């Protein structure tokens, strides 16, 4: 299995809109690589008689009460948005969709 490159991490960070310092890119590239290698080992042992696992912890029915809680201030969201106009997120036009 090929390992994760620094460029891959940079790309992922941009998709997630995370600002990472150059030394962080190296740091996370190493960490993420360990995770990927570990997961890859699962496919070596997974046989047909083992059903796919969607949730590793056998747990169900985690609910919250229907109670309103304060969200985040709009100014803070606006400050973090890549583009903002008229109190809304500004996004590129969408083609061939409606």
């Amino acid at each position: 299995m090929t390992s994760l490159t620094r460029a891959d991490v940079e790309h992922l960070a941009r998709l997630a809109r995370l600002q990472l310092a150059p030394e962080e890119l190296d740091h996370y590239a190493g960490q993420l690589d360990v995770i990927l290698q570990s997961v890859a080992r699962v496919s070596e042992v997974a046989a047909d008689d083992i059903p796919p696992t969607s949730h590793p912890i056998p747990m169900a029915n985690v609910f919250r009460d229907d109670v309103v809680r304060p969200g985040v201030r709009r100014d803070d969201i606006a400050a973090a948005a890549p583009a903002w106009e008229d109190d809304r997120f500004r996004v590129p036009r969408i083609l061939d969709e409606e």
Partner: protein
Amino acid sequence: MTATHDTVPFAEAIAAFDPVLGLETHVELGTASKMFCGCPTMFGGAANTHVCPVCLGLPGSLPVVNRTAVESTIRMGLALNCRIAEWCRFARKNYFYPDMPKDYQVSQYDEPLCFDGYLDVTVETPDGPREFRVEIERVHMEEDTGKLTHAGGATGRIHGADYSLVDYNRAGIPLIEIVTKPIVGAGALAPQVARAYVTELRDLMRALGVSDVRMEEGSLRCDVNVSLSRPGEPWGTRSETKNVNSLRSVERAVLSEIERQAAVLRDGGRVIQETRHFHEDTGRSTPGRSKEQAEDYRYFPEPDLVPVAPPRDWVEQLRATLPEPPAARRARLRAEWGISDHEFQTLVNAGALDLVEQTIAAGVDSAAARKWWTGELARTANDRGVELAALGVTPQHIKRLEELVGAGSLSDSLARQVLEGIIAGEGDVDEVVASRGLAVVSDDAALLEAIDAALAEQPDVADKIRGGKVQAAGAIVGAVMKATRGQADAAKVRALLLERLGVSE
């Protein structure tokens, strides 16, 4: 945009083809907070003020399911005679469109919370009411999407827009989607069956209190699938008309799609599997996206949410909270009020059932309660294109009005003017009576004065009445009513007149 096809008149279309319908209805649940976070669901807040890291899809946030939303979905499933899953999961529906900040919508895929139910609906036919059983495929939970405004460009529409602006207040509001199995055999009644089904769903949800179903705010949206086939042949290709947002539009969307597809098939054409957009103004639809290539939403189990496995005792507790089903309630009320199917249907069609029931509960005689709501008020609501309940008239108003009519201080025509005043926002019954100066002239001296004046103006009529032609009295009564601007009790005027002239009936 492609030109609209020709259409075949509905009766001809139905003579040649059998329609198959499928309805997918999305309804916003009436919870206080969103499906997976504590943001408020209230309609109409300033843009992007009902948002938090969860519904904005920020990295590291963790959604948690709203228990009330699950309960509402289970109760709706039970009311629709569904089975409730022992265990089910949420799924991510992945797509690229900025109405969801996460690039996916949390929904349910092959494990809906409720499945295999039915809803019986009644439609009016020339031969009387007919019942149809609409089978329910599934009821599942999902979250609503944000709202896009297309900006720039010449048209303000998405085509030609330079960019879009997104408000995520609606993103994450709990929705249930109710999907029918194919509805076959409705024939010419198909448009009515579709409408009756959505109407029944709305009434059911209101009765359950799981949603107040404000259709004018888009809290119920329907996607209408229609296909046609010649009798005995396999089902045809279906189209899906999206976002049909009123009861009337559901009926019109089915009807117009049957007329359109019939024209395509008659001309030897092929119905294209596509999404169509319904236009409220014309009652027609225009083609949207083609669905020839099956969509790939890359559904997979939502890893951030644990499965929902409602214990059976919880389900039974929820079953015990179900109200009387609307259909049973209607049957009971019809029997209690002792009225005909036809008269009852008039009440139902006018949306007057709750109002009449509440008016009777307030102490008004049942015939009088029905008369007010289905007469003047239903006409006004219809003229204005609003629901009866939205006129601003309440059962308490009708109660007070009836008291005044019963006491003789208002006539029916004056009472109608009072209603006009209430609808115009002039206040309650007593306020309108006072401000408009509406009261039956019950002062005998004033009435006799008006009677004498009328007799003096029409001496020939006076002579006829004296001579025993009592039916001529109408002319004098009419003149008195006119002179008092309708504020007299006609029966009383007539009695006083005859007494004045020494004539008996």
